[in-house]
């Protein structure tokens, strides 16, 4: 076999003074980067296998290990960067499509970081959330244009709504892309927090049906695991049209990941590829979307809100207007930084638009058309902290989805190798030896902690703005000012510049 | 109400602790012909080897009698029991009356019918006094002959080797520890003993013991003469029923007891090596002269004497014997028999040997040499009569453990501790 031109990306450094040869690293590295040499009584490293996931670093009881970027340099070249060269080597050696995991990591501007949040000074008071009421409860679902009240009673019941204690949900991550333990942790946390998690397109494992009240079941083009029982098992149904990480293309769970449990959950044979077509083949046009929305409503007796999730693309505002008019109760827009278990690198890094613009454009458009209040708007794709959530809601979102942040909370170290199925943290893997590394109870606890911490921070920020109910922030763009943005960008975001 | 226990070894201790579990008040009397605080007989080989001091041989702490309100009558032999009057008559004439009586007189050595066996420097190896006597003659480079390659004989060999004595072992059988060992096990042991300079003469029967007053050599039937400074007799033991022989107490090889340790006479119990209790593997009454058995029988007897209704029906033989470099454990059935499948795995490289006796779906016995750390799991499989059919093929693994038990069984066992 010809020599590979790919040099190790990382170097494993072991402090021999500290290494006690306990071999925890050897046992923990699914990539086999650590090797114990019995003859020499030494632990050695195969740097080429290291993905820098920090599993060994974290578990080493004497902190003997550190991992560095390989200092090996190519000749400096602003155009032919190291990654550009390495990608060519890789493709020249395999002839394959480059795959990657998690969200777009290219240095496109992050617009969240170019928006600043307001606070009250003198003319109205900031509110102290520790002692005064501060409300984050949010309803997702179709709202009538007006309420009809007769004799102090509702004349017509509201369409079904999702009631969230915090306007944050765990976004669609299928059992298959992530492990059962990860799914369970998300479900347990959602249930404890009074929010929703989303099955993704992987079906719903029978052991997780008990979390139905906090579950959004997804219907994607592959229709895996979709049957009437599934549709009725959750609190809402989400039709997945697209995903921010890979707009316009389908998904593909390779057969080796279709384990017994996955086969059961997706209702497909063991070991066979699970292919999600790029489009829903029953939706080739917007009126077909309406057909699917209502077929789902028919199948569930109009008891479940139906969400439609799309990737943020160029014409997103008009598309969302169409979706709202097609009968969706909730629209989910997933920006180009959205995560994924596996996506072609070129697609992930080059297709789609930032969620900030998409969200602002959609909210503005729906308001111009006077239909914003009828449909709920959820944004997703690279939400990293509570300030991002606050900004998203001020731009016009009802709630946000977090995927990558949730995974990181559970232990993901962003090595972006999810597609290999060898996640050392037990998240993006089906290998039973790795899956058990994620203790669902610990995962759930960490998720609950994260959301509670964010909720607390959000309350602080709301209090600072003199707002004590999240709905008063929704679309309240006066609370945002742009920094370092062009006037065109400010226009699209619908906000003023800092200082205005 | 008064409890009397004849005997001061493990069964007696078990009985005291069993009684005191329920009855903290009524007096207990312990009678023993040995003058010592309760000690562990198997420790005599360690004593002889110099591994334990007499102080460390005590089976329970110095204050054992005190804290348990026991009146020990030590160094005085019980002469007779008057079952009608419920009295024990001591050799000094004292009469100790009892409400409940436990006979726990243990076992005594078998003296082989060999000419010259009465000479000096010929010892049994069962009591502390035996060890103390041997200690005096077993000097470095002295020569000893041990007659009987049995469990106790080999423990004596080990002790003597460790004292620097030149030892020759003689046994009439073709292998050592014939009741437990097969050819393979025996040859492993032989090899090891040879390494330590022990001569083992098998298929050899002793004609007579030569010497004036003291033994000076052993003459074998084949004419060989083995010179020696002293001899240890290890031809086996039998139940020590001397005290009750010829009374109305029912005796077979030992005193016959039911699973509550009751003899045929009301308020009289027997436990330990002297008793012939229920052996649940052989499914009949038989002696099971091992410590854990003695303790449990004693404990059961004690509790029942104090008014409980306890049953002990799990008696079976098991033995652990570290022999110089070998670790040997065995339990239950130790020879092939009808309906028993034998599985044996000998690993020459690792010098380990495993042998399992399986009857139907149950493990009924095993022998392990060297790789013994998980032995107790096998013992428990026997004790609980666990259906091993689903994991039988895993039994002989080097890493055998709970992990190879079915999950449900594993959880059940872990919960039931």
């Amino acid at each position, binding site marked *: 076999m010809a020599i590979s031109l790919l040099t190790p990306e990382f170097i494993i450094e072991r402090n021999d003074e500290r290494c006690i040869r306990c071999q925890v690293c050897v046992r923990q590295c699914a990539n086999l980067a650590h090797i114990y040499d019995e003859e020499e009584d030494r632990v050695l490293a195969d740097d080429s296998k290291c993905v820098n996931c920090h599993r060994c670093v974290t578990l080493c009881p004497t902190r003997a290990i550190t991992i560095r970027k390989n200092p090996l340099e190519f000749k400096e070249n602003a155009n032919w960067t190291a990654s550009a060269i390495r990608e060519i080597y890789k493709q020249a050696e395999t002839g394959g499509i480059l795959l990657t995991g998690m969200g777009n990591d290219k240095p496109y501007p992050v617009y969240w970081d170019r928006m600043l949040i307001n606070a009250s000074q003198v003319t109205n008071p900031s509110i102290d959330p520790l002692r005064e009421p501060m409300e984050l409860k949010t309803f997702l679902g179709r709202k009538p244009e007006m309420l009809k009240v007769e004799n102090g009673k509702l004349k017509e019941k509201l369409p079904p709504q999702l009631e969230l204690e915090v306007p944050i949900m765990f976004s669609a991550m299928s059992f298959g892309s992530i492990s059962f333990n990860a799914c369970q942790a998300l479900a347990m946390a959602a249930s404890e927090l009074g929010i929703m998690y989303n099955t993704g397109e992987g079906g719903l494992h029978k052991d997780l049906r008990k979390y139905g009240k906090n579950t959004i079941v997804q219907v994607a083009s592959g229709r895996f695991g979709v049957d009437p029982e599934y549709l009725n098992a959750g609190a809402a149904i989400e039709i997945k049209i697209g995903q921010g990480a890979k707009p316009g293309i389908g998904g593909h769970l390779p057969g080796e990941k279709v384990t017994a449990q996955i086969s059961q959950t997706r209702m497909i044979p063991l070991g066979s590829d699970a292919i999600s077509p790029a489009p829903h083949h029953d939706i080739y046009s917007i009126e077909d979307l309406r057909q699917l929305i209502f077929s789902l409503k028919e199948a569930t007796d109009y008891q479940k809100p139906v969400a439609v999730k799309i990737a943020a693309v160029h014409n997103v505002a008009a598309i969302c207007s169409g979706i709202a008019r097609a009968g969706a109760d909730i629209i989910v827009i997933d920006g180009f930084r959205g995560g994924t278990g596996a996506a072609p690198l070129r697609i992930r890094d080059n297709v789609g638009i930032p969620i900030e613009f998409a969200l602002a454009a959609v909210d503005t458009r729906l308001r111009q058309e006077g239909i914003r209040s009828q449909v709920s708007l959820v944004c997703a794709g690279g939400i990293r902290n509570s300030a991002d959530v606050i900004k998203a809601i001020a731009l016009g979102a009802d709630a946000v989805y977090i995927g990558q942040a949730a995974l990181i909370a559970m232990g993901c170290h962003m090595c972006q190798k999810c597609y290999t199925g060898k996640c050392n943290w037990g998240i993006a893997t089906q290998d039973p030896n790795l899956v058990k590394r994620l*203790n669902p109870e610990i995962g759930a606890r960490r998720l609950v902690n994260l959301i509670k911490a964010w909720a607390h921070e959000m309350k602080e920020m709301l209090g600072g703005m003199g707002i004590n109910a999240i709905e008063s922030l929704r679309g309240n763009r006066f609370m945002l000012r742009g920094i370092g943005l062009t006037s065109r960008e400010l226009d699209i975001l619908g906000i003023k510049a800092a200082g205005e | 109400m008064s409890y009397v226990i004849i005997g001061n070894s493990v069964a007696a201790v078990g009985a005291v602790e069993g009684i005191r579990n329920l009855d903290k008040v009524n007096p207990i009397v312990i009678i023993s012909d040995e003058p010592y605080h309760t000690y*562990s007989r198997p420790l005599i080989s360690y004593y002889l080897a110099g591994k334990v001091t007499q102080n460390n041989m005590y089976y329970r702490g110095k204050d054992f009698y005190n804290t348990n309100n026991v009146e020990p009558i030590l160094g005085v032999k019980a002469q007779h029991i008057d079952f009608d009057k419920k009295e024990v008559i001591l050799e000094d004439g004292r009469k100790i009356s009892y409400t409940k009586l436990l006979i726990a007189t243990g076992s005594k050595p078998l003296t082989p019918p060999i000419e010259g066996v009465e000479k000096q420097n010929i010892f049994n190896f069962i009591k502390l006094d035996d060890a103390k006597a041997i200690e005096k003659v077993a000097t470095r480079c002295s020569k000893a002959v041990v007659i009987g390659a049995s469990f106790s004989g080999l423990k004596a060999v080990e002790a003597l080797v460790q004292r620097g004595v030149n030892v020759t072992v003689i046994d009439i059988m073709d292998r050592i520890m014939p009741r437990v060992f097969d050819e393979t096990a025996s040859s492993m042991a032989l090899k090891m003993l040879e390494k330590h300079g022990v001569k083992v003469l098998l298929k050899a029967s002793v004609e007579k013991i030569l010497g004036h007053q003291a033994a000076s050599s052993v003459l074998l039937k084949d004419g060989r003469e083995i010179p020696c400074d002293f001899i240890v007799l290890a031809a086996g033991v039998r139940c020590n029923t001397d005290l009750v022989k010829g009374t109305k107490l029912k005796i077979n090889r030992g005193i016959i007891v039911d699973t509550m340790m009751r003899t045929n006479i009301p308020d009289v119990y027997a436990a330990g090596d002297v008793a012939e209790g229920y052996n649940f593997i052989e499914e009949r009454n038989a002696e099971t002269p091992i410590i854990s058995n003695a303790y449990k029988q004693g404990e059961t007897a004690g509790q029942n004497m104090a008014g409980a209704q306890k049953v002990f029906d799990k008696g079976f033989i098991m033995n*652990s014997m570290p022999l110089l470099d070998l670790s040997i454990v065995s339990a239950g059935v130790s020879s092939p028999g009808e309906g028993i499948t034998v599985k044996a795995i000998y690993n020459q490289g690792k010098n380990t040997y495993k042998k399992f006796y399986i009857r139907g779906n149950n493990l009924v016995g095993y022998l392990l040499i060297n790789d013994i750390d998980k032995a107790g799991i096998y013992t428990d499989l026997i004790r609980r009569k666990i259906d091993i059919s689903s994991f039988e093929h895993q039994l002989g693994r080097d890493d055998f453990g*709970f992990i190879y038990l079915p999950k449900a069984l594993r959880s059940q066992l872990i919960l039931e501790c």
Partner: protein
Amino acid sequence: MDKSNITAPKRIYAKEDVCIGCRLCEIHCIAAHSKYRHDLIKTFKKLSKRPLPRIVVEEDVPLSFGLQCRHCDDPECVKACITGAMQKDPKTGLVINDTERCIGCWTCILACPYGVIRRDYTNKKVASKCDFCLESGLEPACVKNCPNEALYIKNTIKYYDL
């Protein structure tokens, strides 16, 4: 049985679903029982003769779990012990081997239903078993250092109520 006499011990249990087979429990157990008490580097770098781990990780990939002395209510090892070294402490409910008295006859190994007593030849030939880290204030090193909370301590009083 008179229940008032028995102190229900706390026991360590393993969640085998989340045991990751890293064996950090064993490593910390060794250190906790070495003369350097919890100093891993010194324990492993300076001692050629280290204590045995008293928790044993059994592994049959992907299944693994640690198992250590159950400190049984009715301990077989105590009854089998020929020296009286193995005793159940009536106060703590722990089964403790007095290594001063233990002479390494392995009868306890023969008797232990869990196979969690091991032969330790490190110094003196003695049986090695979990002592619930008695000297570290009953905070077992294995439980404290399990990175995935696969080991936990549970008071077994409930068992007595059955």
